[in-house]
């Protein structure tokens, strides 16, 4: 369990951070999703949430490969409010947000149920709190995103704040998953 949690935490980390040199991503999302899938496959506890997370990670892996191969529109950064973005670019961000939401739901729900099953109610509440934060930020993102088609003044600041919120939720989840892996292993040892 500890190794699986570590793999999942590293996977989330790789998908969260983008270090680019001359446009080349040193931490490609593809590796992150592969690590998440390996970690999920290695989990001893089979929860329905983990199944949802696996499906979402597989879809995101396929999308990342398609993006690397140039079959998907390149990721755009919404940095200017006074210009419009193409429907294909915004749809790609929207689709990626939806898949990430499904992944986070699966992970949070799966870990929350696993935590509850070993009587770690505080950990279960923390996983659900991460999910609620991610949901709120993603809902805001999905609501404001299409306004980018027509260039609306508040777009860049709202997407920036929602993006920061999603990032914070991701970091929080990494911390929780690593800590839960250790706690689960310690509990298993005691038993």
């Amino acid at each position, binding site marked *: 369990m500890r190794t699986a949690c570590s793999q999942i935490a590293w996977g989330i980390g790789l998908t969260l951070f983008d270090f680019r040199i001359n446009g080349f991503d040193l931490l490609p999302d593809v590796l992150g999703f592969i690590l998440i899938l390996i970690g999920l496959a290695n989990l001893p506890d089979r929860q329905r949430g983990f199944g949802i997370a696996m499906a979402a990670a597989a879809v995101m892996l396929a999308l990342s490969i398609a993006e690397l191969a140039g079959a998907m529109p390149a990721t755009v950064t919404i940095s200017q409010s006074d*210009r419009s973005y193409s*429907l294909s670019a915004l749809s790609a961000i929207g689709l990626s947000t939806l898949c990430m939401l499904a992944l986070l739901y699966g992970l949070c729900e799966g870990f929350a149920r696993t935590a509850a099953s070993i009587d770690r109610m505080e950990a279960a509440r923390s996983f659900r709190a991460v999910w609620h934060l991610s949901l709120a930020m993603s809902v805001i993102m999905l609501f*404001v995103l299409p306004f980018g088609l027509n260039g609306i003044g508040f777009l860049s600041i709202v997407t920036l704040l929602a993006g920061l919120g999603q990032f914070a939720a991701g970091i929080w989840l990494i911390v929780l998953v690593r800590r839960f892996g250790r706690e689960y292993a310690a509990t298993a040892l005691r038993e």
Partner: protein
Amino acid sequence: MRKAFFGWSIFILIVASWAYNIYSHPTSRLPEGRFLSHLIEVSDSPGDSFMLYYIANNDDKRLPVSVSNEGLPALQFYPISEYMTFRSQKLYRLIGHFNSGSDEASSASAGPLTINSVDVYYSDGTLEKSDIGEMIVYREGERGGGGSISGVSSSSSSDGTSTASFRVEKAVKVTGFSSAFLNELGSAFTYELYFGTDAAVFPRAIDAGTPISLTAAFPAPENSQLYLQPVTMRLRLEYTDEAGIGRVQMIPMERHPYPTQAAIREYVKAQRRAAK
């Protein structure tokens, strides 16, 4: 129950946001890229220049690569450059100038040439005649260089007012002041012309050393379509010198478009209506 209601409300809001924006997106797009409608007066003397403005949607890949006119082989353009960016459109400009290779012998005897369209080679490989508005090219012979009036200074301010001052080197008789677009522009172009301290009247004999000053402005309201009409004028101060030879002193006056987002939106609406 409350959770389900909350969830469905959020879902409907998101779907409505996408539906509204996808529905209204086409209304903010130009049917196709095009040149603004210009009013241009220019002389074909080497060095004289003017600007053409081209408007297109932000994501349009088809842009003018080169512009020419078969009647004006000496006319050349610098490559297109971005001038202003709006939410859904970009305004580009091309600087046109006359090279010294013009056929002066034939042009000197010819009258002004009026052009309404130019041959444009686009980045998608197509060649098309495109409307640019109205362009009047005065031939070199009409300019009457080496006259008795010389330019001293010219300036323009941020409020759109331009000034130009001249000095009469040898006594002249000023016979007129004109431009092909004075009537067309009407109240959208105002000017004050002074010979010394007196307001201009024609004809009028002016002694050597007398300053001539011109203050001009293009007072177009912000929401007017004139606001999006680039104007390049070569105002013509006509006079006869001491030898009785008729000459013209050209005075350049220009208005460059600085449209607001609202003006661009109105322009796009008008173009969409016209396209229907």
